[in-house]
């Protein structure tokens, strides 16, 4: 008998469509492993809680080794009305996993007539990451952050993962990817529980800015091309994109402040 999982359906009926493909031994030579390292990688993503829910954000850069492979890559994906996934790691596998999770949640909702709980969604993602372990061993690592608004508990929730599919709930904030550590430092310094939405967005953007200053893989705001990080807000009324005009304004003010303090120092 079928269950309501699209993922399980793919596993049993159409394994060729799954994101992960196990490579055989001859394909995993050291030369090929080097090649896998040079596929596009996504860099810094983060999530933090605020008064009414959770904010999830990511920069827009993808790198291939020491080269920039894309400036406009999207790393924060809406999963359904109340959750989003932000991805870092091998971009191809990450994007496919995000897409599969979207279909998975919608599929369940249509078959069962109800949506999964936030916990249930996070758990399903954990199984997908676990299934990616063979590829991760060969260098194609997928490390997402999952954030959602829990309608039962009436609060935002943040989950981080490890490469084996381990799932850990964070109470306040988290950042991962190549600049994750730097973003976390800023979050740690300035995070306070119960921030307003504006304050939360500002903190998310400042953390990404600081990560971009320290980490070569992370992009800062690109004022020339007008490319800014993606920010989404998830609250009781659902998920919303923060528009680029708001983000641009926050960054212009942030950069202005930094210029002023730099002048004073001189």
């Amino acid at each position: 008998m079928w269950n309501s999982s699209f993922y399980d359906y793919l596993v049993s009926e159409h394994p060729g469509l799954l994101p992960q493909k196990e490579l055989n031994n001859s394909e995993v030579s050291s030369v090929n492993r080097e090649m896998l390292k040079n596929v596009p990688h996504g860099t810094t993503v983060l999530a933090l809680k605020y008064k009414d829910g959770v904010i999830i954000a990511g920069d827009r850069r993808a790198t291939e080794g020491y080269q920039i492979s894309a400036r406009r890559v999207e790393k924060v994906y809406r999963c359904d009305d109340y959750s989003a996934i932000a991805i870092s790691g091998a971009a191809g596998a990450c994007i496919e996993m995000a897409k599969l999770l979207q279909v998975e949640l919608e599929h369940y909702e249509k078959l069962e007539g109800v949506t999964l709980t936030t916990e249930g969604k996070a758990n399903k993602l954990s199984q997908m990451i676990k299934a990616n372990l063979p590829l991760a061993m060969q260098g194609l690592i997928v490390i997402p952050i999952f954030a959602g608004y829990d309608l039962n508990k009436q609060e935002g929730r943040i989950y981080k993962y490890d490469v084996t599919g381990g799932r850990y709930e964070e109470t306040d904030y988290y950042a991962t990817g190549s600049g994750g550590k730097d973003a976390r430092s800023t979050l740690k310094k300035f995070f306070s529980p119960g921030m307003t939405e504006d304050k939360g967005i500002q903190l998310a953007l400042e953390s990404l800015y600081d990560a971009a200053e320290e980490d070569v893989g992370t992009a800062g705001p690109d004022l020339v091309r007008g490319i800014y990080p993606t920010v989404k807000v998830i609250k009781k009324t659902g998920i919303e994109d923060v528009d680029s005009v708001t983000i641009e304004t926050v960054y212009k003010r942030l950069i202005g402040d930094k210029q002023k303090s730099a002048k004073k120092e001189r």
Partner: protein
Amino acid sequence: MPLPYYVSPEQMMQDKAEYAQKGISKGRSTIVMEYEDGILFFADNPSASLNKISEVYDRIAFAGAGKYSEFESLRKAGIRHADLKGYAYSRDDVSAKSLANAYSQSMGTMFSQEIKPLEVEILVAEVHDGSGANEIYRILYDGNICDEKGYAVIGGKSEAVKVFLKDKYRAGMNLKESLKLSVEALESTVKTKLEKENMEVAVLDRGRNGRKFRRIKIDELITLLS
């Protein structure tokens, strides 16, 4: 060893068809009707959780009549078909036509090969943005497929409902008008008032972004019918 009785193929098919029709007409009717902003689905359904109407994909919805367990498994198979196609190709590549054809194939095979035919009749409808025409397909228990325009009725006394709608339906009604007409049409065959709690109503609303399917809950229904 006694010889098995010989039954002519005509007789066998006719018996199966009669059996299936009898099963389908036992239930209550479901109406699908085009209106100004999309497609309305209306069913008389005393159960709040066992649905006759369901979302299938962004622009596609499903309605079933007859035996619940049978059209429920068809519904699930349809959602799997659509989700798989949308995942493997693109969301825009999922069409009601391909889904209706897949239903027609599998229902036709079941009718000719299984001893017990399916006692179901289903509708697959797709709403189109802008200038494109909506599509409504009715698929019968034997896999026969009909392309319907304006409105379609399945299950119960569907012929009587169709006759009622034939004179009263006109293109371009708004949601309120088409909903009222659907209520009248079903009431005309059952000769009793329908309870609002027993109405299952949903629309494929052209104006929505992404997923066009929306259920109309009891509060909204009361306002629409007042």
